[in-house]
């Protein structure tokens, strides 16, 4: 196993009085793909959102335990959440382009970081779109509204937008769940390519997808981490009966 990038220790999360995550401890290795699977409502998305503190935005959320990114506890009072999110980027389930041009969507992150030089922005936008395998499709209409792209294109553009901030970790929350099979295949291919340079954590409800793209898989059930290990092992000889039942499709 490579170096550990994210490490959680006894991470517990409450929505008001309801416990949504129960004492999760997990090591996510660097520059590999880790998939979270489990039935809906099992806490996998909630867990993903704790990794860049997106849950901060929801009222009544209480978190105990630790999340260490590069051995730095991100729930420490001294942590700057804004800069943390530049380091830990996120791609959402529903593609969410801004009502701006494609160029401005991708340039959004760099602009916020104070880059306003036109040539520099163009360079970043181009390289980000290339990395997200969408440059060829949009290079002639960068000034068109991003809303005019197809669902799959929008999602890849959103990935490019995340890449433009140059994060080290990319969290993906069911990035292909709303897409057709061809677009899904493109996203999966992209994930495979991206893991050379980024640590990727992906939540998916699609088991085949987890088996195809990930190196490690964590199975969640009702707020608990049931099993975590090499994807190959989880999908062939899981330790827990529960995991096996889910993977073979007996529930969920």
């Amino acid at each position, binding site marked *: 196993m490579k170096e550990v990038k994210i490490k959680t220790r006894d991470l517990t999360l409450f929505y008001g009085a309801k416990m949504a995550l129960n004492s999760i401890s997990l090591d996510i290795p660097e520059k590999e793909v880790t998939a979270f699977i489990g039935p809906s409502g099992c806490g996998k998305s909630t867990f993903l959102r704790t990794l860049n503190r997106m849950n901060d935005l929801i009222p009544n959320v209480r978190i105990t335990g630790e999340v260490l990114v590069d051995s730095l506890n991100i729930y420490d009072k001294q*942590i700057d959440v804004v*800069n943390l999110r530049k*380091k830990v980027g996120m791609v959402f389930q529903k593609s969410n382009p801004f009502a701006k041009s494609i160029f401005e969507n991708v340039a959004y992150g760099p602009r916020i*970081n104070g880059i306003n030089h036109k040539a520099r922005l163009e360079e970043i936008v181009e390289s980000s779109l290339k990395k997200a395998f969408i440059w060829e499709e949009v290079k002639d209409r960068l000034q068109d509204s991003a809303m005019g792209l197809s669902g799959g294109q929008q999602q890849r553009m959103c990935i490019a937008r995340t890449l433009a901030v*140059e994060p080290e970790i990319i969290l993906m929350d069911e990035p292909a769940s709303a897409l057709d099979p061809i677009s899904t295949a493109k996203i999966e291919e992209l994930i495979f390519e991206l893991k050379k340079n980024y640590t990727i954590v992906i939540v998916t409800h699609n088991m085949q997808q987890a088996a195809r793209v990930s190196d490690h898989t964590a199975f969640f059930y009702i707020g608990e981490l049931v099993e975590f290990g090499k994807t190959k092992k989880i999908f062939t000889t899981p330790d827990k009966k529960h995991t096996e039942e889910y993977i073979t499709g007996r529930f969920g």
Partner: protein
Amino acid sequence: MDNQTDKKAFVFTKESLKKKFRWSEFLSEKIITGVAFLSIAIIVLIFFFVFKESLPIFQTRKKEAPKVEQVQKQEQYGEKAKGQTNTSGQEQYGVTTKDTMMIENQVQTADTVTHGSDEATFKSLAGKHWLPVSDNPRYGLIPLFVGTLKITLIAMLFAAPIAILAALFSAAFAPYWLRELIKPAIELLAGFPSVVIGFFALMVMATFFQNIFGYDGRLNAFVGGVAMALAAIPIIFTITEDALTAVPRTYTEASLALGASKWQTALFVILPAATPGIFAAILLGIGRVFGETMIALMATGNAAMTSVNPFESVRTLAATIGAEMAEVVFGDTHYNVLFLIGSLLFIFNFSLNALAEFYVKGKLVKRFQGKQS
């Protein structure tokens, strides 16, 4: 990919993840919160300044002290008024210039008149005569109150049933396309300037009603009331409609499942369930009519009479301010009394709004969440 790292806009280190103080964040939050406070501040300031300008009435009453002191005070007051406008100051306090003209005043000495007018001001507030510009000014608010209440009653007698029934039609019976026409149309009626409604009442409605009913005065409480109903209908309609559509669908379904027809459900289930909202609608409608100025100014005839006859002219509180404030001398008693009327209007309106807000909201929440035992 190799030259990627040195081009990075942002390098992550322990330092870079340290909590940062951002001036723009700090300032924007403080400024936005500060501006949001403005709404509260405006309400407080309105009450403070409107009430402040009416205060001298209460102050004159307090100094029922030795006579010498009182005279001195009045002299100062007189001077101040004179400094602002000479003619009015003389009308009010300089009895000598007028004594040849007015028989009433000739009987009294200068001292008693000034003395009388100050104390009388306060006492006359509860009186039946609103004669602010006579030589013995009297500020009886009773006819104004009666007039305002009368016109409010007439307006609500028209506005409330029509608006509530129309809202029921829109919420329970009208087909979708028709509702989508009625609602914007009433929104547009809400946007008609009251001066336009007042003009319409003055020029068209007044003559029309006179031809039907054959009364003497063209302008009276009835004409004003009907015109004000036009101003109150959109408010009552909108709030009632909201309350009716907020009734949970389970209520309707349960009633229909028990074999009740559509109209029975509307009348015996939806309407009662929405009563707190309808009550609020009526309260706000009353507030709208109570404070309406332009329609009252233009369509009621503006005679301050204490009568119950709906076909006689009335003068409302708001119209009195509107008609007289422009002609009044800054700082004189008449001016203060007009501000006092303003304070009363404001307090009344504020109470109505607060009542509609807290009482009704509490009831609605209880009802729909089933906490009512």
